[in-house]
């Protein structure tokens, strides 16, 4: 089984308790319909196991198939600079149809980002470097498509519903 080669670190964004017994990592693409379908299932998992799961999201934009995926990933990293990574992550997945640069700005407004700062930040190389570093860490860990999940560092062979099933059983 493939292993997560880059351990969870300070550059990662997580939800849940920092010391939760289970760390769930998703490598995702904001324009990928399978990731869109996994999004509400992950929410369901987080609601069902609030104390047990720390959820980490890493970017794996397949830009050749999904032309807006990279811009979306950068937008969430820009939102993170204003402490709103998860708000941006959520609103994008909730409005996955019709993604565009304009739509990203509308979402940024809706979650009350400082728009001037946001539009400066999305042009920063450090943010696109972060997204590319996520992508490369995914490749190194054997990510072969999206979404790919890792449970406590080991690649999970299945989708979000399978994950939910596994957590319920254990």
């Amino acid at each position, binding site marked *: 089984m493939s292993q997560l*080669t880059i351990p969870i670190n300070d550059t990662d964004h997580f939800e849940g308790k920092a010391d939760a017994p289970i760390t769930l990592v998703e490598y995702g693409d904001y324009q990928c319909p399978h990731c869109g379908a996994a999004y509400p299932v992950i929410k369901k998992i987080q609601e069902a196991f609030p104390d047990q799961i720390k959820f980490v999201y890493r970017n794996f934009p*397949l830009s050749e*198939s999904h032309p807006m995926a990279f811009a979306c990933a950068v937008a969430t990293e820009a939102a993170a600079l204003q402490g709103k990574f998860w708000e941006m992550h959520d609103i994008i997945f909730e409005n996955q149809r019709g993604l565009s640069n304009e739509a990203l700005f509308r979402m940024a407004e809706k979650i009350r980002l400082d728009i001037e700062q946001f539009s400066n930040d999305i042009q920063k190389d450090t943010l696109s470097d972060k997204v590319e570093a996520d*992508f*490369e860490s995914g*490749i190194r*860990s054997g990510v*072969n*498509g999206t979404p790919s999940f890792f449970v406590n560092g080991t690649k999970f062979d299945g989708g979000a519903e399978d994950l939910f099933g596994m957590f319920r059983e254990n």
Partner: protein
Amino acid sequence: MLQPGDKAPEFKLYATPDQRFSLAELQGKNVILAFYPADWSPVCSDQMGLYNNMLKYFSKYDATILGISVDSKWCHLAFSKDRGLHFPLLADFEPKGEVSKAYGVYNEEEGECDRALFVIDKEGNIAWSYKSPTALNPGADGILEALEKLNPKTN
């Protein structure tokens, strides 16, 4: 299946309806050969789509990727256009599967090649090979590791 240290067999296959591609032309470059069972099948499309997003990582290691299946050059053309692929797909079509057989990755029962990866070094020797279960997309971690070993300086 050929193993590390084996000489990579030469081939000359159609990449487009009027252009053929040979291994000799790529001497001096690292070459990734990705054998896959069929154009259009779901796993292959994901696998080729993944590689399509990774070309800049491959070129960082001075490597060129070539896809190979027994599909015809016209089928490859349509598939490649549909998926927007930016690397060549070679047609191991006539005599059918000849190159796949030379690399030891032809599945007689299905009449297709296996899902198999080879990394060939600049001298034309096989540096790494891997056969994946047909239904599984092997990803690219093994390819990058093999390339890294060939180009230790790029780290």
